[in-house]
């Protein structure tokens, strides 16, 4: 290969590489990587009564600068059928990056929450977990009332009394008759017709 050819080849390679490198850099620059964000759950305190409680979380970027005006979602972890997150509230961060959710715990014990930022074009998604306790009492589900409770309570007693009265009458009728027959027999004269055999 001639020196000239070599130089040209190298130049081509250099140019092409530079082009690619530039293109690559340009690509990266054309599309800035979404900036990392972070969430810090700042409330509640270690335990809350099972009433509407505040859960606060702050959204910051990688450098710690608060990000205001972004939507955050609060999820609670439910575990009876495997770990499943249930969205319970949404809130938008204020200028100081803090979003405050109102959440009323529906069970007593550990509440594991997750705050999730879905991310935007400019900011990466992030989430954070936290855990606190809810202390009772919590209002449990109450079955619907059916009605007429007091009457239904008394009905069996009334019916029972009626049935007892009926059976007493049966017994009285039979006993009276048997006694009447027996006493008549006892008072009967020896000549009165008696059954044979």
């Amino acid at each position, binding site marked *: 290969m001639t020196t000239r050819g070599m130089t040209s080849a190298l130049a081509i390679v250099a140019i092409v590489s530079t082009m690619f490198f530039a293109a690559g850099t340009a690509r990266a620059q054309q599309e800035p990587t979404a900036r990392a964000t972070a969430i810090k759950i700042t409330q509640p305190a270690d335990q809350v009564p099972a009433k509407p409680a505040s859960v606060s979380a702050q959204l910051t970027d990688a450098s710690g600068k608060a990000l205001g005006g972004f939507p955050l979602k609060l999820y609670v972890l*439910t*575990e009876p059928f495997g770990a*499943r997150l249930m969205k319970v509230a949404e809130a938008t961060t204020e200028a100081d990056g803090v979003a405050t959710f109102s959440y009323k715990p529906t069970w007593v*014990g550990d509440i594991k929450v997750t705050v999730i930022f879905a991310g*935007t074009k400019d900011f990466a*998604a*992030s989430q954070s977990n936290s855990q606190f306790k809810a202390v009772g009492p919590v209002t449990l589900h109450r079955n619907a009332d059916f009605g007429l409770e007091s009457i239904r309570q008394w009905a069996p007693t009334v019916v029972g009394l009626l049935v007892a009265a009926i059976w007493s009458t049966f017994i009285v009728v039979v006993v009276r008759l048997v006694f009447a027959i027996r006493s008549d027999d006892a008072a009967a004269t020896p000549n009165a017709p008696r059954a044979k055999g």
Partner: protein
Amino acid sequence: MKGQTGGDASAPAWSRRRLLGGIGAAAGMAAASIIPLTQIPVAESQGAAGQAPAKSGARQWAFVIDMRRCDGCLYCTKACQKEHFLPKDHEWIKVFEIKDRQGRKSYMPRLCMMCENPPCLKVCPTAATFKNPEGVVLVDQSKCIGCRMCMAACPYEARYFNYKDPIKPPSPFDNPMPEFPVPQQKGTVGKCILCVHNADKGKLPFCVDACTMDALYVVDLNSDVMTNGSGETYVFSKYIYDNDAYRYKEELNTSPRVWYVAGHGQALDF
């Protein structure tokens, strides 16, 4: 030119890349910033959040059916029949095809409504039908005399009589109990049990699990949580309010625990 790491804001927040990325980013921050709540010891015997022993009535089971999603595939019926070894005429969850006057079809699944004021329980002469502490109406087939009064009384036709000897299931299933009445007993009545036997093990009812359209949800009224076969979990009271859910024939004062979201399968037309 779009990058592979698409910054598309409408992508679901769940996409794994984002999650891992987010967790990775947050992990470092979280370690420093989370208030030392995790240092509060969690009583192991209580188990994880919200879990409680089944028999104490800490849960009150209910159900939600989203008719916007039901496509009448009958996977729920078949799964239930398969897992409980039921004959074909026992459809503990039964899907009705409803045709309107223009001939358009929609589907309505119906299972035992687990009424809070169940007519079946009231008329049972031997209390073979009873309600467990979690509000699930069950049948003790060792007490049932087969009078079928409950079948006449149920306004939802949700009960089935074993006219024949049932299919004999393979060997581990020979200890029938109300919570898992397998095998069924001839001459007694059976019905949906809301798979309470599964709930104790943290498993979903078979129909909820089998529903590929995610139309069926199981609900705990105490913790106000509803969840379906693919993990969609909502706050129940908010969901039924937002979706105007109703209960079937609730004017009969049975106080059923199955909520329907009205629909005709419209969620199927993506």
